[in-house]
């Protein structure tokens, strides 16, 4: 999970203070990923150092500083949202957070982001399937390992399909601009990072 990009996503909605970012981050991720305020300010300092965000008054008390995203920050966020995560290791959480974040960032089509990842996953599955096409060199252990990877990736595609359907249904039932914080759910599922 990238705190850095999640904070950029929140800043893309408008300028914000550090404490506000922490609250909104936790709300936007369904309270699954708690965040301490120190992490927020450390990350904001790095975003500022890298030119992705800026604040008024470098010398002011950090609680008084108001942060905003730069155009480089917008570009970096857009690039990150569309970059498929590393699926050679179990990366479900990163993909989930991208979809959660994409569903809330203004001017980002979440269905487009979902399709970018869906296509990438199917292409990856095509590559694995090609590896087991050759029956002449059939190796049971290899076939089982490839199947495990294909089932894992298939499950991720199914989740994307379900997320796609759920988001469309939610948009149909209560059309909003997608940026209103949802009711906070007290779910801390042990994903402390």
């Amino acid at each position, binding site marked *: 999970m990238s705190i850095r990009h999640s904070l950029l996503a929140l800043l893309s909605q408008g300028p914000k203070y550090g404490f506000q970012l922490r609250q909104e981050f936790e709300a936007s991720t369904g309270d699954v990923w708690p965040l301490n305020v120190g992490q927020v300010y450390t990350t904001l300092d790095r975003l500022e150092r890298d030119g992705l965000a800026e604040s008024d008054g470098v010398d002011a008390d950090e609680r008084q500083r108001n942060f905003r995203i730069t155009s480089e920050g917008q570009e970096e966020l857009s690039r*990150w949202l569309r*970059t*498929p*995560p*590393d*699926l*050679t290791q179990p*990366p479900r959480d990163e993909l989930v957070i991208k979809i959660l974040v994409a569903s809330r960032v203004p001017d980002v089509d979440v269905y487009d982001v979902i*399709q970018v990842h*869906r*296509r*990438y*996953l*199917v*292409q*990856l*599955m*095509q*590559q*694995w*399937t*090609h*590896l087991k*096409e*050759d*029956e002449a060199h059939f190796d049971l252990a290899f076939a089982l390992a490839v199947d495990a990877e*294909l*089932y894992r*990736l*298939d499950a991720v*595609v*199914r989740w994307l*399909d379900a997320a*796609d*359907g759920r988001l469309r249904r939610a948009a149909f039932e209560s059309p909003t601009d997608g940026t209103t914080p949802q009711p906070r759910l007290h779910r801390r599922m042990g994903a402390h990072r």
Partner: protein
Amino acid sequence: MSMLELRNVSKVYGQGATEVDAISNIDLSVDRGSLVAIMGPSGSGKSTLLTIAGSLETPTTGDVMIDGTNVVGMSRNDKARLRRRTVGYVFQDFNLLAGLTAVENVSLPLELDGVSMKVARAQGMSALDELGLADRADRFPDELSGGERQRVAIARAVVGERSLLLADEPSGALDSVNGEAVMRMILSACHGGVAALVVPHDAKLASWADRVVFLRDGRAVDETLPPQRPEELLDLGAANPSES
């Protein structure tokens, strides 16, 4: 030349207030030797696309070229003849005739097309043999397992000179091992020169295709890039575009 080519094909059901666009402005081609899969949520137009590709339904607008011939506007008899000779269908529920043996089921379309019973049976046996079913030729469908029945249906779909195979969830009623065997067989038919357009029931089965086209609300919204070859996959991690 493509074996199947859909040019700007749309299908509208109903009229006025009840009008529904089942598929809209679809451009799609399938070459001989190529396996193309269609993915999309239910109601996205996959089955409509397949029935139009097989000339079982007529599009509201657009052209459907099968082996270079536009089937839109063809007479019913001409279409039926083209279908018998060129197009094979595979469905989830096999659609084998219960009163005929495996080889009789496979050779039936040839006999309907005027081929003598003897020649049709020989070609039927050849198709079954290629799919490893020669020893099941004289069994009736209810004496075959689900996987064997679907293999008979595939043999029937590619028997003779038929070179366009259309399959709607051909593995839908099968377990994963038999489902994979069915896709492997369709791919094998493609390696023999058949063009196949398949609606698989999950991404695992779709991944057997050379190309996957994604449908959404009746439109082709995206498709996969040409697959990389195994020798390019030695380091899958390095091939991953993700940031670290």
